[in-house]
């Protein structure tokens, strides 16, 4: 498939935003259930949510560049019963709303216990909104992943690993960002974020490696025999019927050499996983190195998304093999 830059930016930006929101809520929960008295100011969560909101908004903006008729985009929310794309169109603005609410409540200090527990702890309003935000983040990960995973005519995508990888890579990049943000302010949760980010990077790498391995030995869904229904073992296309271009020859082929795909695969493994892991591990607490880790990782994940598209081989390509 042809990698569309709008979609590469959309999925990587919102992935980082969702991961950051989950990290913020995880940090708050960590401090609430923890035994110490440490806590963070509302401002920490408010600014963090704002960063996440900007990432989500940039992603949304990028997605508009993918549409030929952005003014009609509201219609895309109507078919949520059947379409994962439609569900994403609902989930993304809903999450943005929750990010505003979560950050806003923290900024205004509108917080209060909703219920008390026997051990003296309580469930605060911001914490409750945080939980809902996490659920919305996970729902959005599911929608984004399923948009690709449910396309059964692209075997490389039609797998549960697509959903897992979108989620894990988003979480990993969000936690690296959270670590950089927390370290810049010198907050107590930096260690938590650094440790979690390292684990997430490794888990994300494992998932992605499995899908690379799966793609390398994938069986095509159909052959020319079924595609044109001729009872022959040996069928060749003589002509696809035209010498020029068409939508079918542009949208479904990436047009780059296999070497480029291989090179970018190596690049994203290094830049999206190995390098940020090293930077986060070695740069314990150094804000500058953590920010660098996030940037390097983001570029790597963009390359990862490019390869994800390029490796998707659509069944329709059987019909477009040769100009005659």
């Amino acid at each position, binding site marked *: *498939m042809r990698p569309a830059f709008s979609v590469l930016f959309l999925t990587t930006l919102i992935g980082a935003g969702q991961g950051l929101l989950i990290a913020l809520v995880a940090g708050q929960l960590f401090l609430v259930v923890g035994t110490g008295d440490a806590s963070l100011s509302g401002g920490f969560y408010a600014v963090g949510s704002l960063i996440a909101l900007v990432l989500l908004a940039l992603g949304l903006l990028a997605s508009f560049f*993918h*549409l*030929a*008729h*952005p003014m*009609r*985009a509201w*219609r*895309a*929310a*109507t*078919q949520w019963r*059947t*379409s*994962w*794309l*439609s569900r994403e*169109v609902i989930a993304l603005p809903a999450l943005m709303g929750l990010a505003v609410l979560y950050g806003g409540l923290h900024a205004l200090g509108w917080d209060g216990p909703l219920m008390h527990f026997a051990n003296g702890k309580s469930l605060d309003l911001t914490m409750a909104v945080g939980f809902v935000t996490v659920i919305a983040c996970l729902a959005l990960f599911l929608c984004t992943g399923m*948009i690709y995973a*449910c*396309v*059964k*005519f*692209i075997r490389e995508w039609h797998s549960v690993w697509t959903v897992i990888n979108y989620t894990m890579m988003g979480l990993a990049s969000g936690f690296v960002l959270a670590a950089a943000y927390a370290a810049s302010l010198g907050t107590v949760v930096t260690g938590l974020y650094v440790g979690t980010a390292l684990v997430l990077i490794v888990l994300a790498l494992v998932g992605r490696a499995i899908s690379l391995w799966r793609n390398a030995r994938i069986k095509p*869904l*159909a052959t*020319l025999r*079924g*595609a*044109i*229904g*001729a*009872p*022959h073992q*040996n*069928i*060749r*296309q*003589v*002509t*696809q*019927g*035209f*010498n*020029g*271009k*068409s*939508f*079918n020859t*542009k*949208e*479904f082929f990436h047009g780059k050499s296999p070497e480029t795909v291989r090179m970018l695969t190596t690049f994203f493994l290094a830049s999206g996983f190995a390098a940020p892991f090293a930077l986060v591990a070695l740069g314990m607490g150094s804000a500058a190195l953590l920010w660098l880790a996030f940037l390097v990782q983001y570029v790597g994940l963009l390359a990862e998304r490019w390869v994800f598209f390029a490796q998707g081989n*659509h*069944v*329709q*390509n059987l*019909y*477009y093999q040769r100009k*005659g």
Partner: protein
Amino acid sequence: MANEKQLALVIDLNVCVGCHACVTSCKEWNTSGWAGPLPDQDAYGKDPDGVFFNRVQTFECGTFPDTETVHFPKSCLHCEDPPCVPVCPTGASYKRESDGIVLVDYDKCIGCKYCSWNCPYGAREFDEITGVMKKCTLCVDRIYDETLPPDRRKPACVLACPPGARLFGDIKDPTSEASKAIRDNGGYQLMPEAGTSPANHYLPRRKTQSVVHEDQLQRADNPLSREAEPPKFGGPTIDDASQW
């Protein structure tokens, strides 16, 4: 999604000669009609690009010297279980209940192209000029047009095909010409593994053989000799006998 009526094309690969008359007539009719335009870009330049509802492709089957050429017209198959429809986020893609035709509502389409990813046959082509997805409509603006004589209420490609390789009809009506052709000639669907249950069917190539025996080359009874003057015989005729 079991429609009572399902209009479809039946394409006889044994008859198709690969002349592309259906391709050009389709483009001619549709670019100026209800489903149009079907714009081209750089049409006379080095790198032409354009939107078509119908393409004719050519395949070579078998191993030399036992090969055969198959000309293969391809357009939207109006699947009975169309995977392209439920994925559309706007509801612009839909399948009509009244006759099973799969259409795109150009006023709702946002041009996200997601439907085209979910068609295994590459039957949808995006129109970059108007920014909406386009595909075969089975000439929905012809087939119900009562100002046309009844025998012209057919898709443009069917009317154009010089050797008559394309049939059109309701495949749910067992008495239709299309249903009969599918039944009698082993009509089949493309890529059954895709699970789309296409409405359009194809009729397979058939081996047409004629055996000529030696004696058929020699003319045993020359019809010219039969048409020659009848032999005269010498005796009196009826006329002679009656003229006394």
